[in-house]
């Protein structure tokens, strides 16, 4: 077991903790804790980079592939351009290999560079970088839509049933139970099969309509306990309306729970979307998503593995970043969570007390 801490050491740690949070508001404390969470910060930067890179490369696109509103991106190829198969950088007998070269010249003799088709070409010659970027963009879009609709509905429904209780609560929670009993993949497939061809935006909206159940339960629980607290009584005595109490007094106190579970909802959403598209019940051709790319090219793994690797890497990278951000947020919002006091902190505190 870990070494037992002696009483003065514990007192010293508490002092460090207190000193650090002195004069800060709750939000500032949370924000500082989050900034200090290394994995979460790396993930925030990574995720921002991925999102900006993907969206700027492929250009924004809403609606379905046939009927889309688009802005151009910086990548020259689009997903409908069919180029000649290039055998650049390929082993004997292969065409359309990735031309991306990340090793500098002193290791493998050729310099670093993107080449013509950095991610290679698919079997009919389409540029795979363009396909993956578009797929990632669509997947991220669906994820964000599911996340925001789920967050909105979950918070509203949870808040209403937790605050008003009584029959409203009973009705809303039964509805939640009805939806939560059905495995997500089943609901998703039933909906996705129908609206998948209407474009990713609508698919995201419809999936979002069923993604709020877990969050609403959590928010309800939080509201049920917060509404009994003294500060709510005080607000009511001071004449605050229900709306003011919900938005100004209770919601800010429940925001930690909401943010954390929305992040986890989003990482679930991207796995759900890719899974559905893999099964063919989500995004369907001519639209592409990361899941549909994998499903389309999985059979070519033994010959042209790059068609399989890139979309998979992106899914894992996005989901991993979101999960780490969620973990960092949870730690930041958790009032019991104490910062690990390192030896250096103790030395610093010791010195400071001697100086004083």
């Amino acid at each position, binding site marked *: 077991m870990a070494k037992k801490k002696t009483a003065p050491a514990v007192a010293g740690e508490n002092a460090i903790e207190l000193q650090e949070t002195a004069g800060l508001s709750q939000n500032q404390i949370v924000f500082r804790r989050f900034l200090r969470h290394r994995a979460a910060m790396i993930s925030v930067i990574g995720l921002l980079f991925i999102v900006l890179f993907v969206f700027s490369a492929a250009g924004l696109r809403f609606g379905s592939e046939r009927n889309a509103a688009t802005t151009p991106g910086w990548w020259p190829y689009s997903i409908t351009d069919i180029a000649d198969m290039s055998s650049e950088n390929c082993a004997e007998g292969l065409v359309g290999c990735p031309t991306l070269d990340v090793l500098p010249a002193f290791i493998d003799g050729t310099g670093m560079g993107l080449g013509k088709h950095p991610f290679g070409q698919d079997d009919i010659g389409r540029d795979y970088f363009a396909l993956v970027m578009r797929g990632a963009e669509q997947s991220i879009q669906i994820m964000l839509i599911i996340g925001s609709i789920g967050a909105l509905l979950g918070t509203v429904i949870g808040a209403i049933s937790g605050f008003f209780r009584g029959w409203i609560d009973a009705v809303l929670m039964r509805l939640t139970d009805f939806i939560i*009993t059905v495995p997500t993949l089943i609901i998703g497939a*039933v909906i996705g099969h129908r609206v998948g061809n209407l474009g990713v935006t609508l698919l995201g909206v419809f999936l979002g309509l069923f993604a709020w159940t877990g969050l609403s339960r959590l928010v309800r629980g939080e509201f049920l306990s917060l509404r009994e607290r003294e500060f709510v009584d005080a607000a009511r005595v001071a004449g605050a309306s229900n709306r003011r109490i919900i938005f100004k007094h209770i919601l800010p106190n429940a925001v930690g729970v909401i943010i954390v579970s929305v992040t986890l909802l989003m990482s679930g959403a991207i796995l759900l979307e890719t899974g559905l598209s893999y099964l063919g019940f989500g995004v369907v051709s001519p639209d592409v998503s990361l899941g549909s790319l994998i499903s389309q090219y999985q059979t070519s793994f033994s010959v042209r593995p790059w068609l399989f690797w890139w979309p998979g890497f992106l899914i894992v990278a996005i989901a991993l970043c979101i999960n780490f951000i969620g973990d960092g947020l949870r730690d930041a919002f958790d009032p019991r969570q104490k910062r690990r006091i390192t030896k250096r902190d103790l030395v610093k505190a010791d010195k400071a007390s001697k100086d004083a």
Partner: protein
Amino acid sequence: MLFVILLGSSFLIYNLAAIASDPLEELRVSSDPKVKQQILVLIRDLQLNVPPPLRYFNWLKGVLGGFVGDFNLGLTRSHESVADAIGHAIPISIRLVLGATILAIVLGITVGIVTALRQYSKFDYAMTFLSFLFFSLPIFWVAVLLKEYLAIGFNDFLADPVLSWPWLLGLSVFAGVFWSSVLGGSRSQVFLKFGIAFSANALVLFLLSETHWFAQPALGPLVVFAMSLGVAFVVTHLSVGLSNRKVLYGSLSVSVLGFALYLPVQQLFTKQFSDLTLWGLFAASLLVGITAGYFSTKIDRGAAIRTTSLVALLTFGIIYVDRLMRTWKSYSETDAINYRPVPTVGEANSLLEPGNYWFTTLDSALHLFLPTVALTIISFAGYVRFSRGSLLEVLNQDYIRTARAKGLTERTVIMRHAFRNALIPLTTIIAADFAGVIGGAIITERVFGWVGMGTLFNKAIGGQDLNLLMGVFFVTSSLAVLANLVADLLYSALDPRIRIGK
């Protein structure tokens, strides 16, 4: 209450699916001259002129008929009974997920506990990262990778079963790092443990590889005996402590008995061996365990019996696995296998001649191998995170400090006071996972070509088959609701502070 929820959710999904599907879609675009008639027939067959909310009650009537012995889930689009189709699919799906779920629970909880005990160590950080990674993996992606590298790569390796030096050293370094970080200690101890684990692992791998063991694996009586003794020590240490000599001698005598019975038992392991004999032997070893536990001590007999029975069962398990391993060589030499024993798709090799119990058992075990690994990887992460958090929570409680202050050993504090209480909240997540795994298996089945519930579901959605879809839904959500009920009951049984109801 649960019944009402089931009613509500089935009503919801029925209407949703009815609105979302269009069984006439294909016919509408068809150019067949008789298309009008076909549409009319279909409308009559599927009662499409009845609005979905009313049609639901028709379906419900069939389900409720189950109470009067007239259960009816309707017919599929190809006029087969839905109940029959599902009846065939359920055992396959359960076979697919059961092993993986149990494995994920056992491994996940073990790793979760070790990470909690070594909080903020390198091992903890590594496992945290790994579980987040596993959490973020799409199962269809993992599955294809496993197929490519684990199955095909391993089969290629078996053609020439000699480990190359980089592999040997790499695996040994991994083993060294793993064991030294799990066991922990001061810096010099860590180095010592690394050295021992590294060299032991390297030596064993070298010998196995040089003797071509991987192509003809077997344990043999002596290794079986050694492993069984190891099991006896570990189990006794974890359950009652090695200082309890009586129980230790009890467990050790079970091991010795297992060794003595090794050869006689082999006479039973014939081609005509059956599951019935297997269960018989299972019961016999349980009986041996209970007897040994009962007579080994007079104090705290319950714990002693638990310990020795576990040792007996595990010893029998090792003997059984040894027999299966010795089937390996002749199995892979059959024409059906042709030296590529790890399969990538299907539930069983149809070319394999039936009649040999060991061949068919090994065959289905090998077919289960890849899906089990994939499913385990996916659900493992949740258990690690959850059990780690739960144990850390418990370790901060006052009664743990009390237990330590009383002077109990660290083993007793952790295994008896902390571990048991940390397990209670896990019942909920286990129940939820078991229900959810059926959903996850939809994708797994597709990748590995199993024909279970997931395939039925895919067929139902793709073929716009409402009755089949409702059948699948009915089974999965009944299971989910049932699992929740069991979890609630278990919860209240395990934690007396919780009372269900008023």
